[in-house]
């Protein structure tokens, strides 16, 4: 299978590193088939949940005959139902995602690799995977489905994406929220460099869809540490605007603003039970993803 996966965006090492893990939704998911995720409905699966009185019409297979024999009363055994979920992979294809780390890996490429690995994991655990990528043009939307073929098509689509132009990130998130019809999981890959207030409002729209959000915040080291000296002309790669300033003089203020922005984002997401996973392209994907998944599994 690996040979047929699109090269460049699929990291076999990362995929193998997370192969034994599961990405489980913290929220209940509305699926159609049994899966690993908690379902809002009681069903007849493995996990015993409770007894209830028999009412005519119940399936006699779930009648507890032992209790009937001992007590002469009819009880139906209920089990917790698990289900599969629909997972959306949201990829920010704005031009700012093309900024590269010192090692030459761009934020966008890193996002694609992470999305590919997690898409593979989700598909492998039987969930539906969908894709929503936004760039300067119309967003690309692939509805969530299961199956290898669908996964391949998503990966192939990811491989074709190119970062370009400006993206109104809140607007894109709102659009995504409108497309989510029932509970599920949303994996967002972006630098989330957008004014915090608007960004948080858009994320809340997703949370209102009762989705489990995982924000993969991909920023370069330079964006985080601002390692510039002297006169620096900053160029907004999305709109082409430039600003010349004495970077040394604004460094402290930038670091403080960046810290405030990320902290606000983290708190807002945590308030709704979501996660923010800060990543730099300098990190090894094969270590970042397993570490996060393991930590998430422990907290479930």
């Amino acid at each position, binding site marked *: 299978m690996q040979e047929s996966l699109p090269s460049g965006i699929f990291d076999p090492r990362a995929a193998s590193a997370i192969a034994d893990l599961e990405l489980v939704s913290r929220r209940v998911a509305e699926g159609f088939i049994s899966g690993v995720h908690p379902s809002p409905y009681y069903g007849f699966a493995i996990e015993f949940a409770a007894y209830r009185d028999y009412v005519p019409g119940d399936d006699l297979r779930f009648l507890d005959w032992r209790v009937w024999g001992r007590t002469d009363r009819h009880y139906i055994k209920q089990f917790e139902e698990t289900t599969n979920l629909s997972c959306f992979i949201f990829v920010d294809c704005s031009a700012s995602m093309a900024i590269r780390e010192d090692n030459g890996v761009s934020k966008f490429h890193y996002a694609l690799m992470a999305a590919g690995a997690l898409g593979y994991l989700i598909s492998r655990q039987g969930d539906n995977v969908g894709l929503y990528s936004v760039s300067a043009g119309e967003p690309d939307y692939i509805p969530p489905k299961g199956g290898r073929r669908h996964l391949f098509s998503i990966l192939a689509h990811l491989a074709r994406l190119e970062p370009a132009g400006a993206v109104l990130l809140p607007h894109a998130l709102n659009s995504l929220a409108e497309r989510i019809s029932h509970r599920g999981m949303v994996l967002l890959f972006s630098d989330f460099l957008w004014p915090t207030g608007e960004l948080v409002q858009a994320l809340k729209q997703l949370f209102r869809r009762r989705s489990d959000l995982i924000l993969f915040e991909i920023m370069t080291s330079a*964006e985080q540490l601002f390692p*510039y000296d*002297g006169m620096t002309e900053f*160029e907004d790669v999305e709109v082409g605007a430039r600003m010349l300033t004495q970077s040394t003089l*604004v460094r402290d203020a930038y670091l403080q*603003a960046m810290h405030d*922005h990320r902290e606000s984002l983290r708190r807002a997401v945590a308030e709704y039970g979501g996660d923010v996973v800060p990543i730099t392209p300098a990190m090894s994907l094969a270590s970042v993803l397993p570490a996060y998944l393991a930590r998430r599994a422990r907290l479930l």
Partner: protein
Amino acid sequence: MPAFGSAWFLYFGLLLGVPVIIHLIYGLRRKRVPTGAMWMIRRIVEHNARRLRLRDILLLLLRMAALALIVLAFARPVAWIGLENAGRTLVIIDDGFPMKEIMPGGDTLFETAVRKIGPHLEGGEYALFTLSGRMEGEFSDRNALKATLERMRPCSLKGDLKTALSRAAAAQASSRAVVAVGAWQDLGPGEPPVVHARLGHIEVPPRPPGCSIRIAGIRPVPGGKGVEVECLVEDDRSLQHTVRLYRLGENGAREEITGRPVSEDGRTVLTAHNLPLQGTVLLAAAVDGRDGLASDDIAYMALELLPPLRVGVIVNRIASPAFMSDGFYVKTALEVGTGFIVNEYASGDLLAAAKQCDVLLFTDASLVPQEPGAELLAKGWILFSGGGARPLAIAEASGLLPATAADPAAVPVAVDQDFPPIAGLPADMFMALDWGEAPGIAAGGAWRPALSLQGRSRILYRFEETGRGRRVFIAGPPGRTHGADLPLHKVFAPMVRELAAWTGLRLSPEGVDCKIGAVGEIWDLPADTLQVLGPDGTALQLDSGRGKHGVRLLEPGIYTALIGGKGGDAGQAVRAANLVAITAGRSLDTMALGGLFQPDEGARAKEEEPDPGAGPWRILALIALAVLVVEGLLSAAPIVTLKKRGPA
């Protein structure tokens, strides 16, 4: 106009453009960075735009200020406040003939003087005064003055220091400093401090340190031909010496007559048997082969005591170290009004004048057999200054006085062997000068105080009729030498006054009185320390201080810089200072004086170093440094980035 010690350094003020250029270059040398957080950067920049701009301008100004302060510091501003009233610096340089003398290093005295002036020129305007009166003028800056000084050469004439100093003194009221450099050999005894300085510190010829020799008496050998010369040797170190007696032989050669080790009590009597007195010139005694003690003091005494007589002074050269003494005698002779100069270049008129003298003073015994000595030896009074013996005694013993050979008893005896002891004073220090031949002197009177030396000792004198004539007796405490220790003018001034009253002699000119009441008096002190008496008698210590010759405080309102540590040199400086002060009739605000002195190489090197601590420019340098530190603290954009920040 502000005054700067190194005004040329102001050209470096163009460096003020450097920060501006750096600022511009810094702005041009930008690097472009793509970012996705432009909204964040824009908000920060817009929020802090005013503060950032102010900081930028402040940094630029600080850098320019630091540079300006550094430039100003190196330009060495002399003063910031009241520059308009600061006045000029008077530069008085001795360009007299003696300044042509070549020093051991190969430079002339004048070149050395010019070099020594340099460090004292702090800036501003200058007024130059010279002994010769040449090339005097005012100069607007230091370089012009230095150029003039470098063009100058000593003149071939004797300078008139007093006139020059008078001119300088008249001009110094509006001046803030006086720099006087020279040998000042033309200073005469008419200026009291000169007398002090000379008597206290000029020693010609050299002698062993700490040792002195005096001839206590010369007398004919009883019952035989020849003389006995009694010598008194004093040595602080208690070393053994041999005292030798020489005579001036044919062709001026020096011949040893006899020699004998000094006895334990320091007395040695040398007997020269069969010495033909007639035509013999004793060169006095010498210690360990060195020349004997110079008898400046004795000659001076003689001159002062002989104002009614016509005194001729015979010198052999002018521009030589010995000229110090010779010039002194000349001046003294002229001062008392009857002397004149005869030297080897003397014209016939001078020789004729010399023949009219009652007293001839030979400053160098080698002159005696030379012209015009031979002709002049017939004179009745001949004094030798170079021997250390009492002049009259030498005259007597040498047989040059016609009466001596015929009747020794009739010859005035210089040293009174019968001098009565005075209680409390060691008799061996007494001396008596015969005054018997002077007309109109009546003996009498008790011992009178002539001088009290700061309560340490005193000098007494009296006139007395003796069996051999009228004499003046001077009694004083022991000292290394009479001449070196005693301010003789003070000894003799009252004495001469009394003598004048006693004898009815007219003193010419008004007299030695003028030597009393000096502004500063220098006693015989160790060579590197001078004690100066101020006008009110306050003792002021001059400490040459740790081998560095700088500005010394003489007294409030009087400053002087003594360059050189030797007493003679410092004395000259002080006396020149006093001269200016006396002439100006006021105290000097600031006076930097430099005598010419040959210090050791280390001291010379230190001396010639410009004093980095002088002037306010050091403060400026410190301020500039502080500004740079502040700039470094404030600057988030250092011109030189020592360490580039990288990702953590």
